[in-house]
């Protein structure tokens, strides 16, 4: 019986810490691991580690892990606020970007400073579908480690602007029904009613929004519809 309680305690502690870590991560903001700045990455790893220790060891009070996680969250939020208000603090915390290629010339000194080698440069260029260094006008190594590339004007894909073509306005399509649920807020945004939606669905032989997998409306007023598999 004691073994069962021991398992339940571990279960409860894990559940609680998981919720706490999820809330902490949400409060830290929306970022993917690859987009994290160095200090954010450090804090993320530390939070994960801190949650695991009291999860495994029942002798460690849960509060120890909670206090450490909350302190890290406080540090992260404080640093974010300071970064927002001070450019100097921001560059101290995140570092500065490095211009690796300037006017088509590789900046060896910048590469040495950033400890960034040619293999890494070529790899990140390939990931951006640039296979020839001669096509690069500027390449900037961002503080997150991402490479931003400005291709030479002759190597850029042609845009309607280059061809002096008039184009129509294109906004974001509005998702009106998702997984059978009517997105009322999106309907309100587009100044349409549910009655209109139902009549449109009937035109396509669909009786109810609950039968729709996805329905979206683009800026040209065209409705894209896909019914659920019956």
């Amino acid at each position, binding site marked *: 019986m004691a073994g069962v309680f021991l398992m339940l305690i571990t279960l409860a502690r894990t559940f609680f810490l998981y919720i706490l870590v999820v809330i902490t991560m949400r409060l830290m903001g929306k970022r993917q691991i690859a987009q994290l700045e160095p200090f954010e990455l450090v804090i993320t790893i530390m939070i994960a580690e801190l949650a695991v220790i009291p999860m495994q060891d029942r*002798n460690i*009070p*849960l*509060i120890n892990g909670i*206090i450490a996680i*909350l*302190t890290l969250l*406080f540090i992260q*939020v404080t640093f974010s*606020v300071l970064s927002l208000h001070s450019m100097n603090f921001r560059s101290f915390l995140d570092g500065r970007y490095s211009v690796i290629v300037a006017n088509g010339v590789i900046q060896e000194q910048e590469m040495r400073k950033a400890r960034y080698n040619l293999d890494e440069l070529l790899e990140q260029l390939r990931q951006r579908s640039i296979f020839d260094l001669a096509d690069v006008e500027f390449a900037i190594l961002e503080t997150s480690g991402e490479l931003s590339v400005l291709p030479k004007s002759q190597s850029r894909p042609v845009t309607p602007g280059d061809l002096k073509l008039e184009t129509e306005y294109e906004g974001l399509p509005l998702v009106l029904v998702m997984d059978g649920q009517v997105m009322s807020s999106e309907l309100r945004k587009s100044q349409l009613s549910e009655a209109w939606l139902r009549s449109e669905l009937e035109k396509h032989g669909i009786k109810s929004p609950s039968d729709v997998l996805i329905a979206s409306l683009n800026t040209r007023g065209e409705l894209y519809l896909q019914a659920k598999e019956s």
Partner: protein
Amino acid sequence: MKLWIFMSLVIIAIIVGGLFLQQSILKTTDRISRTLDLIQDAVRNNQWQEALALRDKVDHEWRLQENRWTPLIHNHELNTVTIHLARLKSFLASEDESSALAEIAEMRLKLIQLHEQEILTLENIF
């Protein structure tokens, strides 16, 4: 900014809570140490019944505090004092003076350590 204010309040609450815990440990360990002195005197004067009664008083107070501190202090530290109290009871019951005195000395040291571990000092930080 709202989140920062909220988190600042949380951190202030943690600091206040920590100071309160530190004071609570200091007061309790002081009180128990004083009672341990009385038990020590009773043992030296062969007043075993009085020593047992005083030990029970310490035990009662310790149980109360232990319940309060369990969510805050490493369980191992608290268990050690509880074990010392149990052993002391058996030494007092069997009227074993030297073992009882050794147990009291060990327990007193453990209480000092318990308090010192919770103080904000450079030694504890590093």
